[in-house]
């Protein structure tokens, strides 16, 4: 057989650490982390109640909506937990993913590149797997920092990209799980963690081509490499978790978009869009502001003073963003169910809440019948004992337990209750 061209020569790869055992250790960690990402990601889509118009940002989803269900309002921290896990675990998996890809990179330069139909097809599934996982991490991480260097819809890209990944991941798992289990059994992790650099030997030659034919002497022990990957992952976890968990940990989230410390005034907590950015003018929110309530048979127009004169309710509820950050605040306002009753719409199946915002994907959102009837679903007028600030949605905003942050519409202008949708 002719000699393979560089970099397809097996002698290119020099690391004495690469081998099926090391790859399988990273694989085993991903086998816990990735399903968690898939589960929280799919739930995150369901949380938008895409069955209600205009909530669905991926109307072309087709069969991928098969599992959607009426999103619950309890426990109140459900969306907060889901989204915190999705973003925090995702960031913590970055080093594991990169280490896993590092460990198998010789396979990319297999020679000859294709030896059978089966191999050709499997290599296509691997390209889909690696392409989609990188695509998902890049789009997710950049979206969490509101950085959009692209002109496509994040929601479409991230949802369909996820399904490309799910398909390829299931196949990869089916084909490689036996190899992973076999490889893990060949070496004891505990024994490996006791070996320093002097005892770090390459893994025995393997049929996968991961073990270097001519390895360099080790410059780090296998224990050191595993420790480094673990420490990086835990480090990123520690730098991220605070923006979801809050409290003292928030100040540890040094690089998180909504981490760091905020002041202690009632309205000092993160926002996800400012009044100025969506064109809210002061005169629209002044004494002339009216809330338009519409039912199927009656309509009302209510001033903020009239809303203040209605029975007020106060609840501690989290506000949690798709980007992963969340914070608990004490919200005071009128029950959305009470507003429904005012226009004879107690039995409404949905309410379309429209904002004063000029344009933007979330200038309006619909809430479900279950969300309307939850006692803790409020049209909030105050937060933490003070009137809402402009950036938090003055004169009135929605706050619904366990709903995605963007469905808690700010600067509410009109609420249209609908009987059946």
């Amino acid at each position, binding site marked *: 057989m002719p000699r393979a061209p560089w970099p397809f020569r097996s002698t290119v790869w020099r690391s004495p650490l690469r081998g099926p055992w090391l790859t399988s250790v990273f694989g085993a960690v991903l086998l816990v982390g990735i399903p968690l990402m898939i589960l929280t990601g799919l739930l995150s889509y369901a949380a938008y109640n895409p069955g209600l118009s205009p909530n669905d940002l991926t109307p072309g989803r087709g069969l991928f909506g098969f599992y959607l269900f009426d999103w619950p309002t309890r426990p109140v921290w459900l969306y907060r937990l889901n989204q915190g896990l999705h973003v925090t675990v995702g960031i913590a998996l970055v080093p594991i993913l990169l280490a896993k890809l590092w460990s198998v990179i010789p396979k990319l330069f297999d020679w000859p590149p294709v030896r059978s*139909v089966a191999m050709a097809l499997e290599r296509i599934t691997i390209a889909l797997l690696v392409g989609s996982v990188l695509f998902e991490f890049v789009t997710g991480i950049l979206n969490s920092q*509101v950085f959009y260097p*692209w002109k496509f819809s994040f929601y479409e890209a991230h949802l369909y990209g996820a399904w490309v990944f799910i398909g390829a991941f299931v196949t990869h798992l089916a084909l490689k799980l036996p190899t992973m289990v076999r490889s893990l059994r060949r070496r004891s992790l505990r024994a490996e963690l006791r070996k320093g650099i002097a005892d770090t030997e390459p893994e025995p030659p393997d049929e996968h081509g991961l073990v270097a034919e001519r390895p360099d002497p080790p410059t780090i022990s296998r224990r050191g490499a595993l420790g480094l990957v673990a420490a990086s992952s835990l480090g990123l976890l520690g730098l991220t978790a605070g923006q979801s968990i809050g409290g003292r940990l928030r100040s540890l989230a040094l690089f998180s978009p909504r981490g760091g410390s905020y002041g202690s005034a009632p309205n000092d907590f993160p926002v996800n869009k400012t009044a100025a950015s969506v064109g809210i003018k002061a005169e629209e929110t002044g004494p002339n502001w009216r809330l338009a309530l519409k039912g199927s048979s009656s309509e009302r127009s209510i001033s903020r003073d009239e809303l203040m004169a209605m029975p007020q309710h106060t609840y501690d509820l989290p506000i949690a963003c798709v980007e992963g950050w969340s914070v608990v605040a004490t919200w005071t306002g009128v029950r959305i169910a009470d507003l429904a009753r005012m226009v004879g719409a107690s039995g409404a199946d949905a309410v379309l809440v429209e904002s004063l915002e000029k344009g933007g994907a979330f200038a309006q959102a619909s809430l479900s019948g279950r969300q309307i009837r939850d006692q803790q679903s409020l049209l909030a007028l105050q937060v933490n004992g003070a009137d809402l600030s402009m950036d938090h949605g003055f004169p009135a905003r929605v706050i619904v337990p366990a709903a995605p942050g963007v469905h808690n519409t700010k600067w509410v202008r009109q609420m249209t209750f609908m009987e059946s949708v």
Partner: protein
Amino acid sequence: MNALRKVYGSGLFHFVAVVVCFAVSGYAILRLADSAEPVLIGLWFLGALLAHDFLLYPVYTLLDRAVAKGQGLGGTDRASWINFVRVPVLLTGLVFLVWFPLILGVNAKTYRAASGLGTGRFLGRFIAFTAAVFLVSAALYCLRLLRWQRRAD
């Protein structure tokens, strides 16, 4: 069965598994093709793959090899400092990789619209974080040298 193995190169299970991938992923790609910007999304998909395999991976590998060569010592040598460079570079590099938009402020406009805040503080934090990580690493290396010397005496 043997005929399949001969023509296909693997068993029925392999074939079914690959078909499952092409069915699910293929359908997702069809859904993507219906979206507003399918070509652009495809380019980003391909770009992410190429950027890792042919940019990020070779760059960090070549850097690592250069450092290892520059040191010229075996890994078991007690004066080896390579990991006292590797570890802080990796930790700070990962932080940069994940949060570069905020650190560099390339998203400053959308970030201000979203949060009401500027991005300036992130660069300062990153510099301080980098300095701290490298300082700790250097201090640990000095300690190790001292211990080694004391043992040699």
